[in-house]
């Protein structure tokens, strides 16, 4: 068990291995994620029953919840990558830290925009400075801060060190986003979808939501792989295997 984990760590930590691995996975991952996402969204938009109190505007959750959870998960992954990059100086962790940020920022923005467009017909307001929404806005700024840091510092290893620190500290904000609806008085309602215990959402709405979520997460993974490949090529441009690769027509 320990040996297998150790081997994975070293294999995926090697840029060559990662590049070969992602070449094999991406042609499958990208189309599968698009199909899964399309099925989930079509189901939620056209086939799922209407919500009794919110009317059809509730259908916005089929993109809002997957985007929000994806943005949070992506940030946690960045925090972990930051830790590995800082402590063990692993190159692939630095690459991942950079590759995770852009799509995470997009998902945070999608979460805020769709949340506002759902809030207007449901709560009567696009925005309120409550704990959930404010901390989600901070999450977007943290993502943008990490992107800005990485493009502002020329040396990629130094840039990664600075970004690692911000990524790790920012994980506190993810905890605040997650528990703000339980600890504090917020306009935003609590979660109806639970990993542990009974969800309070009906099955007819739960399944399309879970499928959309899976689809968007897989799409995020595909985006990260694409960006990580670009970054690996850029960093390893002098390495023999990259030369051989680009010389092939």
């Amino acid at each position, binding site marked *: 068990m320990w040996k297998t984990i150790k081997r994975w760590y*070293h294999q995926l*930590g*090697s*840029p*060559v291995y990662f590049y070969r691995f992602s070449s094999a996975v991406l042609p499958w991952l990208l189309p599968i994620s698009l199909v899964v996402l399309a099925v989930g*969204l079509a189901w939620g*938009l*056209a*086939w*799922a*029953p*209407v919500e009794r109190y919110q*009317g*059809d*505007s509730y*259908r*916005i959750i089929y*993109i*809002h919840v997957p*985007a929000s959870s994806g943005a949070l998960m992506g940030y946690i992954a960045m925090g972990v990558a930051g830790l590995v990059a800082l402590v063990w100086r*692993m*190159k*692939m962790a630095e690459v991942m830290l950079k590759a995770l940020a*852009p*799509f995470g920022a*997009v998902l945070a*923005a*999608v979460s805020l*925009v*769709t949340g506002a*467009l*759902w809030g*207007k*017909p449901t709560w009567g307001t696009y925005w309120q400075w409550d704990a959930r929404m404010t901390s989600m806005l901070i999450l977007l700024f943290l993502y943008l801060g990490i992107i800005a840091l990485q493009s502002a510092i020329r040396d990629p290893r130094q840039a990664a060190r600075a970004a690692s620190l911000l990524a790790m500290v920012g994980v506190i904000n993810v905890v605040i986003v997650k528990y703000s609806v339980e600890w504090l008085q917020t306009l935003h309602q609590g979660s109806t979808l639970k990993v542990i215990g009974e969800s309070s959402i009906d099955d007819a709405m739960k399944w399309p939501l879970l499928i959309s979520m899976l689809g968007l997460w897989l*799409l995020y993974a*595909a*985006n990260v792989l*694409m*960006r990580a*490949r*670009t970054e690996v*090529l*850029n*960093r*390893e*441009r*002098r*390495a*023999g*295997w*990259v*030369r051989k690769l*680009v*010389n092939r027509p």
Partner: protein
Amino acid sequence: MYFDSFADFLAMGDHGFFVWSAYGISALLIIGNMLLAWRQQGRVRAELARRARREARDGTTVSGSSDESGS
């Protein structure tokens, strides 16, 4: 299908503006970012290939430093 007609589906029970603008903006942001990532990958590969061709033509190879490989 939950809705009676396609017009009903578009109307979203009078909430069509909110539902469709939410999905429209999301699609724009997500697809835009995917295309950006795709284009970047192609650009870097093209640049590296160009550099390799130039080096092959000039007969000069900038020697790769060994410390850049591995994890």
